[in-house]
């Protein structure tokens, strides 16, 4: 009702009088918005308040193995085959602060997750991407032990933390390194918590080669990549009923 109807011929499929062109376009745009939000399981469009530096975004997207970045920075999506149960790949940038822990400054990363009621997430694969600078001392061993801790307590870093992963890094040159954290992330999500806090320590002498300085090296912001699939808890209950 209330739509202005033009004198043009009727709707070819439904026989109703055709709508004004701009009214029809507005309606179609609203339908498209609703359809996209519904398919992405979003109640409303996300409001982006803090922007990630574009250069960090492009670096992370380049790591998302199925996307290519054109010279002009736009993203070329590879036509991958749809997964029947609609998998996701997520890149999450951490809130970062360097903390003084027992063994000098650890890089402290806090990731935030919000799970919808009734839907839990199955983590198929997840890894933490850390950029380690090269060693400044040419005489030092170019291999360095890096450790990733899961911190249980948000405020007092270093007090109650669990070693999640450790590995030897080659630090002859500055470069990216990955740390598989699939199990850690799955356990965290299953626990229903909202903040995942990790600490990364790559100590060489007085320096943490994995520390991050937001003002000088924007492109190398640490991030997490995860391939996940929605698990529908509701169906699980149905099964139980049967």
């Amino acid at each position, binding site marked *: 009702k209330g739509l202005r109807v033009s004198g043009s*011929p009727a*709707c*070819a*499929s439904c026989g109703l009088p055709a709508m004004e062109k701009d009214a029809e376009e507005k309606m*179609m*745009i609203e*339908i*498209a*918005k609703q*359809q*996209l939000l519904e*398919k*992405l399981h*979003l109640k409303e*469009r*996300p*409001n*982006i*308040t*803090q922007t*990630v530096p574009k250069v960090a*975004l492009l670096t*992370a*997207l380049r790591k*998302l193995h*199925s*996307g290519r970045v054109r010279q002009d920075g*736009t*993203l*070329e*999506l*590879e*036509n*991958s*085959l*749809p*997964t*029947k149960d*609609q*998998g*996701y*790949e*997520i*890149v*999450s*940038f951490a809130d970062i602060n360097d903390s003084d822990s027992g063994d000098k400054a650890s890089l402290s990363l806090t990731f*935030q*997750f*919000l799970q919808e009621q009734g839907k839990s997430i199955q983590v198929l694969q997840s890894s933490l991407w850390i950029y380690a600078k090269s060693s400044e001392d040419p005489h030092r061993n170019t291999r360095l032990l890096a450790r990733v801790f899961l911190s249980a307590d948000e405020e007092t870093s270093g007090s109650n933390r669990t070693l999640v992963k450790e590995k030897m890094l080659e630090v002859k040159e500055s470069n990216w390194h990955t740390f598989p954290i699939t199990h850690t992330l799955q356990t965290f999500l299953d626990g229903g918590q909202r903040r995942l806090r990790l600490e990364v320590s790559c100590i060489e002498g007085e320096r943490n080669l994995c520390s991050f300085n937001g003002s000088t090296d924007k492109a190398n912001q640490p991030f997490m990549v995860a391939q996940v699939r929605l698990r529908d808890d509701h169906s699980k209950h149905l099964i139980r009923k049967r």
Partner: protein
Amino acid sequence: SLRCGDEVTVCCKRDFYIKFKDIQWDEWIIAPEGYHMNYCMGQCPQHLAGSPGIASSFHATVFSQLKVNGINTATASCCIPTERRPLSMVYFNSQHSIVKTDVPDMIVESCGCT
């Protein structure tokens, strides 16, 4: 599949493209730049299977059963999508994480009559 022109009569595909920049959705959708929300419209003939003389098809069998049971078969068939493809998207979610997903069956490639 026919592509609809200005005057639409028979079943065809109407191209409809929304640029995310035009609706300020490019703030949270990183790629693609827009969405082809094509749709099908136009008339379709009565079900061919319902026409006399077409006796040897599965549909004809179904329709003859429907007739025997007094169900009206003089209905027009529908103009529907016959081919669709996924829409790959990369977007920010509400926690400022970047999500990449393929949403199946989002873009209508062709239309036809049932």
